[in-house]
């Protein structure tokens, strides 16, 4: 016979209890201190950035009553710099709030607009007037990629992490249980609980160890690393070239149509911006294929809704040097350049947008 049960209870002596609590507290505090110290040291060697997300910017929108709303993927963050410049130039009359839906697609933007932004946009006072009446301009920051979902019928995978609130998560869990899709919400909530921690922010990215090694033992890039970099560049370029085969997603185009309809119905002036791309990644194939095909199709929707289309794909002062190593995002200096240049040129109208705002 196997005796598996082990129900011996731990000794309970009131006299020992206080001593043991002190011991447990000491262990816990020392463990916490150790984690905090190591985390801090790792943070020095591998600094992390906490990016603004939909929830941060929605809270900002709630308090700010902006004159300009910008919606897009991570690229929309560029307009945080536009906001600084515009405020300076107009003495805070123009207020731009950008809402970046990281890893967004047009359908993600639509979901965010309908479920997170519209409740604020349409919120009314007791007398029927709008709570936030200042919004005049809406800018949709996009590019060809946003019209190419990974698979039809699949929900936009970035929504739980980027746009959901607890109520959306709980409703989905009640319907489907915890799934790989809605679990992303929890992972992101967890990450946001510890924005101060390098270790938590790095989890899943694996940047800390290489950064620490590089800090302690700096070495020039090896031939293999350089080859890898070249491969990545080539890969990116190829993705753009081949994007033309994947631009025909009814769901994403319907989302674009709906976004335009929602905003124009409210009398808001809408602009669609095709975001700048790293110039050297754009091949002749892309210039003759993916990019014009996408633009032409987007233009048709813009014409129907009287929306202005601004194409900055390769027509700005931005050069390769203004991009981060991910070939996708523009550096702070690049964004400053773009904001000043943009407000002097194509987006100059934003500065006049608040003229009738009280």
């Amino acid at each position, binding site marked *: 016979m*196997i005796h*598996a049960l082990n129900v011996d209870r731990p000794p309970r002596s009131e006299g020992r209890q206080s001593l*043991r609590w002190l011991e447990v507290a*000491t*262990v816990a505090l020392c463990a916490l201190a150790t984690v905090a110290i190591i985390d801090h040291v790792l943070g020095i060697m591998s600094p992390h950035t906490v990016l603004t997300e939909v929830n941060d910017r929605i809270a900002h929108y709630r308090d700010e009553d902006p004159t300009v709303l910008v919606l897009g993927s991570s690229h929309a963050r560029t307009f945080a710099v536009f906001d600084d410049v515009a405020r300076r130039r107009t003495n805070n009359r123009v207020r731009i709030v950008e809402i970046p839906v990281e890893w967004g697609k047009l359908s993600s933007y639509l979901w965010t607009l309908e479920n997170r932004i519209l409740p604020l946009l349409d919120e009314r006072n007791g007398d029927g007037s709008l709570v936030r009446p200042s919004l005049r301009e809406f800018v949709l920051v996009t590019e060809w990629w946003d019209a190419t979902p990974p698979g039809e019928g699949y929900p936009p995978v970035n929504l739980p992490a980027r746009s959901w609130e607890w109520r959306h998560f709980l409703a989905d869990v009640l319907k489907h249980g*915890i799934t790989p899709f809605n679990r992303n919400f929890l992972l992101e909530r967890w990450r946001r609980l510890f924005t101060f921690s390098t270790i938590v922010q790095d989890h899943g990215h694996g940047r800390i160890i290489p950064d620490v090694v590089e800090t302690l033992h700096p070495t020039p890039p090896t031939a293999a690393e350089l080859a890898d970099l070249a491969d990545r560049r080539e890969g990116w370029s190829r993705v753009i070239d081949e994007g033309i085969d994947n631009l025909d997603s009814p769901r994403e185009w319907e989302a674009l149509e709906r976004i335009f309809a929602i905003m124009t119905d409210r009398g808001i002036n809408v602009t669609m911006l095709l975001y700048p791309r790293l110039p050297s990644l754009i091949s002749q194939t892309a210039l003759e294929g993916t990019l014009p095909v996408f633009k032409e199709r987007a233009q048709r929707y813009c014409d129907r809704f009287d929306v202005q289309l601004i194409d900055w794909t390769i027509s700005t002062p931005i050069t390769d040097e203004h991009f981060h190593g991910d070939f996708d995002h523009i550096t702070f200096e690049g964004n400053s350049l773009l904001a000043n240049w943009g407000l002097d040129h194509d987006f100059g109208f934003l500065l006049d947008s608040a003229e009738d705002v009280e």
Partner: protein
Amino acid sequence: MSLASVGFAFFLPIVFAIYWLGPKRAGWQNSVLLLANLVFYATWSLELFGLVLASTTLNWALARVMDGRVGRARRALLAAAITADVSVLVVFKYLGFLVDSFNAMMGRVGLDAAVPLVYLILPLGISYTTIIRIGYILDVYHERQPAEASWLRHTVFVTNFAHIMAGPVVRAGAMLTQYASPRRLNPADLSAGATGFLLGYTLNAYVASYIGTWYVDPVFSAHSEYSVVAHWIGLIGYAIQIFADFAGYSLMAIGVGRVFGLALPENFRTPYLSTGMLEFWRRWHISLNAWLFDYLFVPWTTGKSWMRGRIGLGFMAVFLVSGLWHGAAWTFVLWGFLHGVALVVQHRWDLFYKGLCRKDRAWVQRRKRLWYTLAGWAITQAFFLLTLLPFRSPSIGFTFDYLQRMFVAEGTLTPNLLSLNFAFCLAILVAWHLADLPQGAWLRPTFARMPAPMRGIAWGVLVVFLGLFVPLGAGAFIYANF
């Protein structure tokens, strides 16, 4: 949600706070636990928690009715309770398998049965809740345990979120008394619970995830592309993965129980140190094997039935049940059969050896020698390793194909063993087992005697290590599938 998931990191502190900040009354604490069980289960399926509740309530009610009765009525109630419990298990877990097997059998004799296949969603933890309920009703029937008067206590005992997914298999005698009295938060429980949870998490989310992701899944998913060495690595990797996965999860479950002032039974005791299969099953999934032996093997082989005294047959029957309990597939039947045979062989060997010892006492001494122990260890571990093949395989055909490629394979790929993470995983496993050997017996006491700040620093370093090396979203749990 599993105990290693990020969802649990939100769930545990909330339940912990409500549980301990509320009144120190058993009724309150049990109510909080029941609600927590509901939420925990709802993260998988709220509807199917209704099924678990209904089965558990029926089990409780039948035990209550049985309590005052004797003779035929009592036996009928026992039969009704067990039939109800087993029926739910059969319908949800085995119906598809039975129909599939029936169709295949008819096909073999040239008949087209074509009974439609029905694969229902398997309610989470159904195998565990079923045997806990059957154990309870048998305890009440044999008067080892009075029928529990409180529905709440009985329901919490069966459905506790700490063990509902994968055990340990709890028993009424040990648990109901704990649920009957109010629990008080004490530092020893909190400390032991947190320690167990952290160590379990290390095994489950780090060792099992890493080994599974890099050395097991790739080989098993495309084994024809891998070399002979890779096939051995894949299988040994699986032995490491399944131990770390399950022992780790069990430790986490026990740790969680402890944090709520509940002592759950031990489930693993370094099984890879076993020198015989009987010993192995006393060290691996202890609570299940103890249940199988106490509730099936002992009554079958010592009762009044025709199986009385037929030890070998008892082993075979118990392990066939164990195999089927693990999964509704012929691979699990094969696995159970092989282990049944192994226990029969070992039992016969022990009887034979006893005979030798009676004739010549020198055999007693020989059994104590190192070479005998090492031979026993090697045979036991090699046997267990090879029987993991059907356990991991999707079909019997795959099992034999993989087995063949462990000796002759045309594939050329071999997983890279020269990795820092692999070295860490091995170091953790070695230290884990060393601590249970006489040579390493000093490890745990030495750590416990260290000044509290030193221990705190050590735990802190472990937390940082896990933060750096545990893959995002790790902590999937193989045994949840059973």
